[in-house]
């Protein structure tokens, strides 16, 4: 299970990287970034997974005494939880930049933005 999701995460990360580097449209580049985010989250979660164990919630199914032998690692989940919310903020920020750039240049092609090139 963790091997399958780990290798999916790696391939997805490379797809996202390829999208970021090879695409010309700014919106497509931002889509590449969101795929990159999701891939990294999948990798982190699958590193914390221990096969055959359940979610880190100590209810009826997992008594408090046996918690150490029955739950998966909760720390990566806590980190990914914050990472997803931040990724939404960053995506929205990038889209706002894209809107502003489109307003000034009236295009979304990344090759047209040469103002900082010399």
């Amino acid at each position, binding site marked *: 299970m963790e091997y399958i*999701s780990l290798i999916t995460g790696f391939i997805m990360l490379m797809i996202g990287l390829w999208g970021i580097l090879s695409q010309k449209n700014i919106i497509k580049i931002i889509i590449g970034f969101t795929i990159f985010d999701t891939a990294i989250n999948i990798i982190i979660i699958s590193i914390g997974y221990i096969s055959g164990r359940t979610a880190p919630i100590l209810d009826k199914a997992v008594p408090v005494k046996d918690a150490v032998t029955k739950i998966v690692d909760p720390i990566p989940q806590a980190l990914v939880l914050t990472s997803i919310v931040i990724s939404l903020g960053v995506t929205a920020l990038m889209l706002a930049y*894209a*809107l502003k750039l489109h307003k000034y240049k009236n295009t979304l092609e990344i090759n047209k933005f040469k103002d900082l090139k010399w």
Partner: protein
Amino acid sequence: MILNITAVFLCIAILVMAVIAVIHKKLVIAIIASGVVSLFASIIFLLLAAPDVAMTEAAIGSGLTTIIFFYVLNKIRKESNG
């Protein structure tokens, strides 16, 4: 065993959708494909025993992100037409 087979199918679907999201010419289809990637990723998180993360990904990754993309796309289209 059944979980592993399900995970393999889901992962193949995720990879296909990711490729579509990156290479498709139409922006609308690319955005929807990236939303579908997030939705399937949330199921993967559920299979990896992380229900908190699955809820967050389903609500934020596939819901709000797609809506924000569409608002921006709508705005850009109106600017280029008018």
